[in-house]
């Protein structure tokens, strides 16, 4: 492996990060061999494969994988290539393979745990040494798979932190999203939005906890909603005392983007080890959605009054799970920043149904997803423009550094910590971990 000098790319505490982190294809290739192998990467939700033989396809970094429900009902994750010639066994985003995978090229077949089932006209392999080949073993079945309350993660590398050690307290954000269902169960609904960005995947990760951009970059979208709504409502909605017209759901979802710096500052940021963290500790832009009739009662019946209130009051904003996932529990969305190349990323945005909760939640979630995350979203247009201008602007040789010093303190990280809401601490937290996984040990 051509070693990249990580120390030259990330300053102490990640207060500044070199442009090659975003621009260099050799850095990207090293990420694929280190960051995306050594960490627990999300591959899917088990509600996507409800029946035996159901599968979905995705990537871990750039490695194509299949998540499949095996005949013993466990979730298996297999590398998506035939051990014979390398042909992908399936290429639909999802489907059912029945009891086995059958390669469309030469009809080699494999059980849904990847073990070999049959090879046509097999006697041609006698006395060829085939028994000792990789091909004989079947499809590669990944050993380190964790199904955490329906969320399936994989660590490609044999060695590394356990799932619990890697995520520690950050799992509380996934827990909160699940607990919002009176039945404690989520289901993926529909296909994901897929949005092609010509920028580095980490620019999108940085953006998730960047609380100094919404009121600026989204002035064109959220600001226009605010202006038109105020004109339509015939009043100044910045004065909360007079509300003659109920806010449409869409206005309720978009207006908080125009909150002030002071509001975002008070929102707070929490960080955990290994690069995870979230915005919205004490309040978030998701905190003031209208109540949905019948929901609170069903939550009290499920959890008791005190616990139900606690679950509903926890309205975290964006939780970033290192390396490339973001979860919004309060609006039940999950985004994946899938790396394609140093300057190419596909963003997938998924929604969940809170099983047992009124449909209004799903309606709100679906609306949020299309308004904010779609390639047709005006909010998305604002952000993409910034990422791609940065990808171009970083080509300027005179200054190779991306600055992340806002609220920087040398001793700010370690364990679970809370910080001011406009701090760039979660970006730094990401790059401190990124540098660690990029440089630690030998190739795995």
């Amino acid at each position: 492996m051509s070693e990249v000098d990580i120390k030259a790319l990330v300053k102490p505490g990640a207060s500044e990060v070199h442009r090659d982190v975003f621009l260099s294809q050799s850095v990207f290739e090293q990420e694929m061999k280190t960051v995306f192998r050594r960490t627990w990467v999300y591959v899917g939700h088990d509600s996507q494969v409800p029946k035996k033989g159901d599968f979905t396809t995705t990537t871990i970094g750039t490695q194509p994988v299949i998540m499949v429900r095996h005949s013993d009902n466990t979730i298996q994750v297999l590398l998506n290539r035939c051990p014979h010639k390398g042909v992908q066994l399936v290429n639909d985003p999802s489907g059912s393979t029945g009891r086995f995978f059958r390669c469309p090229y030469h009809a080699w077949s494999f059980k849904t745990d990847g073990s070999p089932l049959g090879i046509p006209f097999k006697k041609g392999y006698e006395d060829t040494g085939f028994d000792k080949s990789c091909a004989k073993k079947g499809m590669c079945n990944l050993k380190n798979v964790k199904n955490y309350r329906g969320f399936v993660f994989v660590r490609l590398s044999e060695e590394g932190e356990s799932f619990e050690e890697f995520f520690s307290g950050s799992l509380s954000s996934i827990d909160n999203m699940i607990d919002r269902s009176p039945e404690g169960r989520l289901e993926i609904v529909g296909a994901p939005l897929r949005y092609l960005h010509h920028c580095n995947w980490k620019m999108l990760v940085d953006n998730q906890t960047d609380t100094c951009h919404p009121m600026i970059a989204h002035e064109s979208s959220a600001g226009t909603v605010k202006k038109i709504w105020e004109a339509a409502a015939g009043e100044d909605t910045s004065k909360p005392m007079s509300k003659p017209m109920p806010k449409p759901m869409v206005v309720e979802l978009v207006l908080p983007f125009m909150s002030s710096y002071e509001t975002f500052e008070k929102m707070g940021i929490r960080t955990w080890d290994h690069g995870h963290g979230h915005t919205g500790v004490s309040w978030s832009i998701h905190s003031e959605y209208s109540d949905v009739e019948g929901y609170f009662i069903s939550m009290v019946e499920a959890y008791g009054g005190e616990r139900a209130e606690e679950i509903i009051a926890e309205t975290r904003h964006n939780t970033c799970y290192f390396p490339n996932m973001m979860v919004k529990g309060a609006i039940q969305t999950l985004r994946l920043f899938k790396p394609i190349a140093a300057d190419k990323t596909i963003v997938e945005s998924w929604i969940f149904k809170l099983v047992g909760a009124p449909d209004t939640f799903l309606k709100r979630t679906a609306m949020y997803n299309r308004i904010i995350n779609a390639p047709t979203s005006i909010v998305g247009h604002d952000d993409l423009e910034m990422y791609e201008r940065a990808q171009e602007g970083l080509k300027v040789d005179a200054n190779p550094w991306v600055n992340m010093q806002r609220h920087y303190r040398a001793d700010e990280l370690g364990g679970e910590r809370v910080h001011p809401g406009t701090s760039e601490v979660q970006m730094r937290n990401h790059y401190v971990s990124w540098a660690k996984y990029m440089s630690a040990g030998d190739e795995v």
Partner: protein
Amino acid sequence: MSISEQDVIDFIYAEANLLDEHKFEDWLELFADDGVYWMPLEFGQTEEHLTTSLMYEDKLLLTVRVERLKGERTFSQRPKSRCHHILQRPQILNPQILKKGKEIKTKTAFHYTESRLDEQFFLVGWAEHILRPTGDGLQIVRKQVNLINPESAHRNIQLFV
């Protein structure tokens, strides 16, 4: 008021022409107050609200889009995008109701091109209109845009198909 088949066809061609000439405010006026513009995310999708769509916009949201396109601080429109529609002759799906003054359903195949800076992309599919005859002519009650590849990883789609 009697609407002929030719009136309907002319209306749909004129609608696309307003978009191609960037007369977005005039285009917006074609929509009824309860009008909706819908672009599903999945091929053959029938659910409007309880799953993700690419767009499902009432007149408020369409107005926001049109306003935003004009904005001084709309950086993704610096420089501006351009678009172009090639339409097949619209089909009227319920021609028997033309003389009855009821809502008219049409289907129109399109090739749509959008460009900005050095990028240009194509979207292909068909639009289904529901048009309401009024004293002032036709209004769009619903425009449903069906792409042949709604699930693809798209770049920014900033104007209107």
